[in-house]
């Protein structure tokens, strides 16, 4: 906890208030609750079958709902949940608790060829969100 500097002016910008659709209870704010969906990344659909030996693809979960802080190329699920949690602490009545924090991360292994025809087996220990708070 850091005390704000007394002379420091309030910043011009303010934390945005989300249009809460990521709430656990649909009754709260009348929003759509978060729903867990499965996303399948197919290596053959990506046209990568010539260099990815295994697996054919992998599945992960993602949240579906109108989250104010959506997952983007620069934000993973954990960051998303952290931000929402911070905003919730600041404005508990306006922003619900983060409900889509990953609670369990599973490993994935990918077997692929490199440019020199060497074969690489890469294991990512905590990569795929298998369970989240939804």
């Amino acid at each position, binding site marked *: 906890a850091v005390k704000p500097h007394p002379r420091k002016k309030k910043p011009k910008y303010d934390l945005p208030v989300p249009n809460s659709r990521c709430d656990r209870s649909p009754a709260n704010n009348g929003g759509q609750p978060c729903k867990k969906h499965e996303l399948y990344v197919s290596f053959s659909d990506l046209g990568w079958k010539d260099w990815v030996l295994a697996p054919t693809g992998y599945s992960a979960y993602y949240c579906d709902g109108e989250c104010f802080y959506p997952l983007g190329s620069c934000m993973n699920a954990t960051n998303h949940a952290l931000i929402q949690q911070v905003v919730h602490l600041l404005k508990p009545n306006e922003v619900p608790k983060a409900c889509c924090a990953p609670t369990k991360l*599973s490993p994935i292994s990918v077997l692929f060829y490199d440019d*020199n025809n060497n074969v690489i087996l890469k294991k*990512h*220990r905590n990569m795929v969100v298998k369970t989240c708070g939804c």
Partner: protein
Amino acid sequence: QQAEGLVHSSFRRLSGREKKEMQKEILSILGLPGRPRPHPPLRPPSSAPLFMLDLYHAMSADGEDEGNEIIVNGPGMGKFGGAERLAQVSHAVLPTLSTHTPPLGTVVSEADTVMSFVNLVEQERDLLQPRPYWKEFRFDLTPLPQGETVTAAEFRIYKTLTMGQRANRTLHISVYEIQRETRHREPELVLLDMQSVPAGQEGWLAFDVTSASNHWLLHPRSNLGIRLYVETEEDRSLSAGWIGLVGRRGPRSKQPFMVTFFRESQVPCRPPR
């Protein structure tokens, strides 16, 4: 209906740019700067991909059985194989692809990356030249994963059955790292591993070459390859080909290769993207 519309609005076709961004993101997760372009032809798969597929399936099975480490270093199964391993491989009932037994154990379960390297150069002093006979192999280890350290490395070579040999005769196969080459002189060699195997056995032999790969990792220019010698119990030098060790000219599924196990040297930290 409105809510339904909102939900389904997220299920749309990605634009070309978004597709590229997503592909870039997945490649980045895999630790790749771009899409690899392996040189064709890749079919039929050679020994290294087959071995790696076996390893992948073993690791995947372990992943399903969460919390358990792959520990198969049971009796008669050394860390890196050996004569007992050779015997087990040749008698094991293996799936279609498996002509190999991956070196399961803590080394595998703790590895973050496993890489197989294709043998690039093969030289030998064979039966037409004076003794002692030897065979040299070289592997290009330069495309090593960054931020990872070698935990183990194996040189794998297949031994077939050959005619005209006493099955119960013991062969001593030793592998050396070539440390320095000088003109008109024998190079400086450092013993890496040695195994004694019966002449009448067939299967994969795995030699521990961890110290050499660590050396090559620190000093890539010092990578002069490895040299293999075969001797009888009477110290008689034999040609590798004569005892049935398969080289580059052998069947693709039995060609020698090197496999290296890496572990992330520090807590993985994803760079901001």
